[in-house]
């Protein structure tokens, strides 16, 4: 079920990719991607395996440096900046392989994710237990991702679905305006994926969301617009209905039996 | 002047090749198992001692073959009966295990052969001069060492890149369960790799034992330099280790030959520095005194200019 058309507060795009290229040695992974993601839009990127979706995410979030081309985040050029700098500019991402702090408790994990945005930086004279705003914010996120009963458990022993929820929680905890989710429902059962979709819908209410997904049900459920990435280039960018009807997309991806249908 | 340059260059190359011989086994073990073997220099020392002892009993040439084999067996035992139980605890635990092992080997060597250096002298069969350069003779054992060193490089290069077992080992490093499921004996492969690396260290020790003093502190003296080679050359890179070894070997040997200090240069320019002051300490250090720390200065330079190392590819 699609949302009502998103309110576009800011006409300029949240993310603007211009002619991005990425090669590893002689192998060209991303070949000229140009894309605009509007503010408060939910944008999905789909495509067959090996199309370069993770590489694209890595470039946007600062893990990789593009070979050429530019990336603008909320109007600022962030091409080639370090991940922590890009995060401070307002972008947060989750990972395909769960990426938390395994030896810290669930609560500590979320609290670490809010520390910078609360302004505590490299402070070595305050006690984290007494930081009211950070602790409250962390509690609220914990409630939102429904992990409050597990708050003192070491993150390393959580179940897979709980880890994915924690991953999403840590991504949104810092209050980033642009969120990148890399296959958030991968490996989940139908019920778990449904709960995850509701969570994503709730947390992305006033934020820009870009997600990579293989589950077409989730994609058509959540996305305002979809981009299809095939062999390093964007084949089409359009509303879900138009993408479904697009002949080129069908033959390249949807019709070819690559995607899971719900 | 040309004499000093030529002789120093030749000696520098010899020393660099010795360093490479020692580092190559370490690079092999690291590339293939991800284990930084702190006890590598200790096995080198064992090779020197074993060749000394075996040389006494059965002669040099048989010792040249058996000492490395013994070291390989010792390496196999270390992996099979010790390190194997530590892999599951992570890389840090592996380093700590080999760190403790280095202490233990040094003490065992003391226990067996005493605290003083043993008379590990060059056997007469290779103690003749191959040729003479500007009056200083170039002994045959150094030539032998050069041949062995280059042969090691070629052997490892091929083994790591192209042979089937090399590929299996590379697969086992990143996907041990999958490789095991495909029928390869991953723990056995690890034993083989560790044994091979140790055998190489032992072989280096046989020759190195003549060139350096064979005493219990040998591993402590040469170990850190080996690690500097690894950092400067780039972790996991065999060619990088080769270049770094040569660089350190040549630079250090040249430094030993320069008997001047900054104070001499200043004095030539008419500037005198007061004795007893801290600045005097600094500028009166002769380059030849600094020679032992040339590797560490190179380390700092590498860190500032190119932290990845010369040919480094992996970030650990």
């Amino acid at each position, binding site marked *: 079920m699609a949302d009502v058309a998103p309110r576009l507060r800011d006409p300029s795009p949240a993310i603007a990719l211009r002619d991005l290229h990425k090669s590893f040695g002689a192998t060209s992974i991303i070949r000229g991607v140009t894309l605009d993601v509007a503010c408060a839009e939910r944008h999905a990127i789909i495509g067959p395996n090996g199309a370069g979706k993770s590489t694209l995410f890595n470039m946007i979030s600062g893990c990789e440096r593009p070979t050429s081309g530019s990336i603008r985040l909320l109007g600022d050029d962030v091409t080639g900046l*370090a*991940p*922590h700098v890009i*995060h401070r500019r307002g972008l*947060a991402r989750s990972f395909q392989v769960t*990426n*938390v*702090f395994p*030896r*810290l408790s669930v609560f500590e994990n979320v609290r670490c*994710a809010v*520390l*910078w945005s609360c302004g505590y930086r*490299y*402070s*070595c004279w*305050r*006690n*984290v237990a007494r930081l009211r705003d950070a602790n409250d914010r962390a509690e609220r996120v914990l409630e939102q991702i429904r992990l409050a009963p597990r708050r003192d458990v070491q993150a390393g022993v959580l179940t897979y679905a709980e880890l994915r929820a924690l991953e999403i929680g*840590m991504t949104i905890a810092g209050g980033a305006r642009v969120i990148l989710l890399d296959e958030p429902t991968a490996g989940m059962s139908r019920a778990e994926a449904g709960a995850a979709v509701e969570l994503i819908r709730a947390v992305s209410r006033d934020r820009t969301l870009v997600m990579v997904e293989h589950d077409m049900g989730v994609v058509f459920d959540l996305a305002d617009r979809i981009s299809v990435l095939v062999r390093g280039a964007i084949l089409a960018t359009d509303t879900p209905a138009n993408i479904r009807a697009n002949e080129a997309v069908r033959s390249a991806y949807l019709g070819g039996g690559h995607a899971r249908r719900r | 002047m040309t004499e000093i340059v030529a002789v120093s260059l030749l000696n520098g190359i010899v020393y660099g090749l010795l360093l490479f011989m020692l580092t190559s086994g370490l690079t092999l073990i690291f590339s293939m198992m991800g284990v*930084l073997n702190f006890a590598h220099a200790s096995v080198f020392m064992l090779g020197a001692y074993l060749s000394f002892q075996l040389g006494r009993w059965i002669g040099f040439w048989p010792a040249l073959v058996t000492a490395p084999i013994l070291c390989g067996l010792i390496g196999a035992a270390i992996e099979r009966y010790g390190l194997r*139980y*530590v892999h599951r605890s992570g*890389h*840090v635990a592996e380093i*700590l*295990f080999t760190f*403790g*092992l280095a*202490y*233990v080997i*040094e*003490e065992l060597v*003391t*226990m067996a052969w*005493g*605290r003083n250096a043993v008379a590990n002298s060059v056997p007469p069969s290779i103690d003749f001069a191959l040729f003479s350069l500007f009056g200083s003779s170039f002994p045959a054992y150094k030539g032998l060492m050069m041949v062995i060193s280059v042969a090691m490089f070629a052997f490892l290069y091929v083994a790591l890149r192209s042979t089937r077992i090399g590929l299996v080992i590379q697969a086992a490093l990143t996907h041990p369960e999958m490789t095991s499921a495909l029928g390869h004996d991953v723990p056995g492969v690890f034993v083989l790799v560790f044994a091979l690396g140790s055998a190489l260290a032992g072989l280096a020790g046989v020759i190195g034992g003549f060139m350096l003093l064979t005493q219990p502190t040998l591993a*402590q003296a040469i170990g*850190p330099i080996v*690690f*500097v080679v*690894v*950092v400067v050359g780039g*972790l996991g890179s065999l060619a990088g280790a080769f270049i770094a070894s040569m660089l350190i070997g040549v630079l250090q040997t040249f430094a030993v030959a320069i008997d001047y200090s900054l104070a001499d240069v200043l004095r030539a320019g008419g500037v005198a520095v007061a004795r*007893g002051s*801290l600045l*005097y300490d*600094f500028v009166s*250090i002769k380059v030849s*005194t*600094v020679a*032992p*720390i040339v590797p*560490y200065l190179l*380390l*700092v330079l590498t*860190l500032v200019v190119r*932290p990845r190392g010369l040919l480094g590819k992996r*970030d*650990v």
Partner: protein
Amino acid sequence: MSGRAIAGLGVRGRHWAFDWPMRHRGWLATFAALVLLPLVPGLNSDFGRSLLTQMAIAAVFALSYNVLFGQTGLLSFGHAVYFGIGGYAAIHLMRAVNHGLALPMPFVPLAGAIAGVAFGALFGALTTRRAGTIFALITLGIGELAYAAAFMLPNLFGGEEGVTASRTRAPEVLGIGLASQIAVYYVVAAWAFVAALSMRAFTATPVGRMCNAVRDNPQRAAFVGYDPRIVRLVACCVSGLFAGLAGGLHAINYEIVAADSLGALRSGGVLLMTCIGGAGHFAGPVLGAMVLTWLEASLSGYTSAWLLYLGLFFMVIVVFAPRGVAGLIAMHAPVVRTPAFARVLLAYVVAAAPAGVTMGGLVALIEMSYRVSTQPELGTKMRIAGIAVDAASSASWVGAVFVATAGFVAFRATWRVVAAAWTLAEEQSRAVKGTSSS
């Protein structure tokens, strides 16, 4: 710390005057121990107090190491550099005080702390460009560099003999002087307590928590907005500060600082202390420091194989008890209150006997070998644990091998007993937990 567990038992309902001491009872107990130990019979000699002083200095040093290792995940092989530089800074300040500078001696270790944090920042900036294994190798190189530099700059480092000063030749300020060993102990203990408190507080600060985060997952730490390099740099500075402080305490205790204070042996020593004690618990390094200092003081006089025993002990801990002695103790926490715990203790006693016999045999072999190869001038007859052996006679060797083997076989047989006792204790503890949480 156990304070939290106590709080969980419902102390919140009690009067505040009782609450605060209960929550911090670990620290209060430590404070009391520090005050009272040098007066305890057995330790109230100069030797005993000197031992306690050494333990306190080692504890601060080991805790500072754990800021890097256990807290931030940085393995360093050159930590003694900060200790040594702090020591040299302090000893030079002491010399200045000897020559008339009006500063009370007890404040001299601060110079060590300042030097430590300065070089922590300098070397930290250099070394944090890489992490993990490369960081470890770089610290090794910098350690060697510093050690060599100590011999090349004799005016600053005193060369072979080191730099000396007097802790008593000071202007009388506030009547504080360090003439007796017990005065030195109390000054050192005071600094050590403050240092431990500070480092404990540091673990609860935002950057302290991010150190843990960077240890667990540096990539994720970057993605929550923190530059892992800066976090590691802060850890280096804090660690260097307290290591330098320990060096300063060393300076006022021994009145001499030489190149060995920044050498590889000391760097290795603090690593061993921290790992043996247990890097995962705050008190682990303190435990390790105390055990190792005591072992060194008592054993190194008796046997020249001391380093071999230490190395073997360390390897055993790495393989069989990676959480260290503190981890071993913590492992018993869930089963301490079960009735089967008595059986566990009994099983330990049963296992200890053959273990002791095995060790006796091994020790005999080792000691005899050492005597033959390193001290032949003392002859071959010696006493091990009161038993006379002769390294020259094959009977002694055969006997030692036999004792060691037989002991080991018996020891292996007792493992079943220990395992059975533990299984029972664990079942009981699970049952208790099951009923109490319902």
